[in-house]
């Protein structure tokens, strides 16, 4: 991008040397500039705003005001923790629900594999917001599930699912399930069935084969699924706002309110930066634990 051009690159041969060394910059310049201006610069601007002092009426001015961060953590610390808990719970639920299914499709799907994959992808053809509203409707207090159960007196009249933590976590689980199932399927599908035969030949029983051959080989898929599920689930505010209540507010709702309703830009910026840093640390720690050094490889899936 901005770096000086080198003409001694090993991949370049003969007389094309000079023109070829400019080519990658010409090709990537428009896109890279777009990402620089509308992705990286905004991060820097936000970091800058997060250190501003003042208020909406007198105007915000830059003053190395780190108290925004301490105030963000002291006011919204519990909500941060709650968001991480919800995100982790939803990620764990998607993993538990999708692994057996991905396993069955990958090893037993036969020639219908692509049909099952297509069925898994169908929810993506319906708007995320509409799907979440559908769940609000299904789970509503007198709705198609709770209504009949209450009529039969199997549930107390004031029993409700909406506005609870469970509803929010269930909504997150539903919405991000395919993001977990697909990468796991891809990883499992790549496993050579002869490895399973080899494990059996070496006297491994089914459980040992599963735990010591199948699971380790599917870890890249689990990692990709974790990344694609945990980050958006933790920072989501649609599920909490449609399915949740006051006691299940997530950090996304707080950022949204501070930014768009209260117009407290320094506070909202500090919260955004904290969220970004926390999630990045979480992802990198997770990558270290699983030994997936090549984090960028995830993007290939």
């Amino acid at each position: 991008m901005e770096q000086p051009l080198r003409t001694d690159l090993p991949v370049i041969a003969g007389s094309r040397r000079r023109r070829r060394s400019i080519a990658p910059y010409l090709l990537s310049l428009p896109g890279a500039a777009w990402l620089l201006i509308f992705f990286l610069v905004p991060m820097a601007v936000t970091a800058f705003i997060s250190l501003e002092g003042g208020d909406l009426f007198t105007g915000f001015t830059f003053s190395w005001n780190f108290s925004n961060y301490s105030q963000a953590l002291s006011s919204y610390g519990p909500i941060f923790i709650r968001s991480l808990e919800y995100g982790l719970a939803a990620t764990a639920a998607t993993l538990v629900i999708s692994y057996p299914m991905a396993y069955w499709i990958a090893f037993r799907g036969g020639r219908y594999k692509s049909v099952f994959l297509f069925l898994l992808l169908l929810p993506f053809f319906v708007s995320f917001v509409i799907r979440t509203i559908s769940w609000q409707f299904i789970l509503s207090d007198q709705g198609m599930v709770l209504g009949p159960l209450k009529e039969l007196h199997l549930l107390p009249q004031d029993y409700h699912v909406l506005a609870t933590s469970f509803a929010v976590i269930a909504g997150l689980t539903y919405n991000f399930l395919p993001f977990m199932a697909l990468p796991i399927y891809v990883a499992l599908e790549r496993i050579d069935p002869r490895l399973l035969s080899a494990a059996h030949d070496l006297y491994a029983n089914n459980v040992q084969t599963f735990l010591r051959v199948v699971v380790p080989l599917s870890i890249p898929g689990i990692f990709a699924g974790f990344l694609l599920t945990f980050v958006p689930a933790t920072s989501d505010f649609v599920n909490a706002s449609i399915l949740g209540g006051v006691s299940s507010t997530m950090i996304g709702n707080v950022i949204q309110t501070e930014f768009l309703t209260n117009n407290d830009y320094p506070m909202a910026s500090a919260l955004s930066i904290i969220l970004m840093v926390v999630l990045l640390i979480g992802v990198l720690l997770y990558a270290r634990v699983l030994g997936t050094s090549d984090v960028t490889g995830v993007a290939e899936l």
Partner: protein
Amino acid sequence: MSAVASREIPLRESALLQPRPKRRSWTRLILPTYTAIVIVYLMVPIFVMIIFGFNNTHGRFNLVWQGFTLSWYQNLFAIPDLTTSLINSLVIGVSATAVSTVLGTMIALALDRYAFPGKSALNLTLFLNIAAPEIVMGATLLALFIQLQIPQGLLTIFLAHVMFIMAYVTVTVRARLAGFDRSLEEAAQDLGAPPLITFRKVTLPLIFPGIMAGALLAFALSIDDFVTTYFVAGSVNTFPLWVYGATREGVPPQVNVMGTLIFAGGVLLALLNVAYQRRAAKLQ
């Protein structure tokens, strides 16, 4: 000893197809049944959306089944704001997809074909772009627009969409380039084709399925985006924003109908794409 012998004797040809020993019949039904249940669970909200598009409801809330009607299909465009929001979504989806497909493909070519200083920085930026939480992208972008006093509207939504869908195009096209036989390009150049002709006549047709897949993915992401759009839209509505805003006063059945039509159109396009690729594979 005998156990060892019995393991050695059969060449496990058939075992490759059925690596596990036969189990009792009911246990073999557990996983297929389970898979079917999960798939039905994934479909439930879609069924609800489709069915209640035919509901003969009268009040503001479309919650109780009151009989079959086609009137919402006939009065699909009866709510002007909803129609405008759908048109906005389509306009932004098409334009952002077109721009991001071109830019994303160019980046994919640069990353696949060349080693250059700055390549790893570019790779890292693309990864961060895909991994970053959407709310952070939306909030930071709004901070930039406020700082520069750029009014929020269709233009800012377009800028934001190209920013977050481009990396997906790059990843998809790059996967296609990874399986690319470079000798075909060399052959074209040996026959005297200038680089641009080589690209148009050889490279482009070969990577076209990857570009198509990337463009479809980009369009799907753009038209359904809520979080980033919510921050940078100002007073402009897109389809998901309008639906979200309507939840408080009750979502009109027209939303179900539009959702159903988008769903049907998307499924149809995907199936056509599969059929087209099957035919292309057969012809090869």
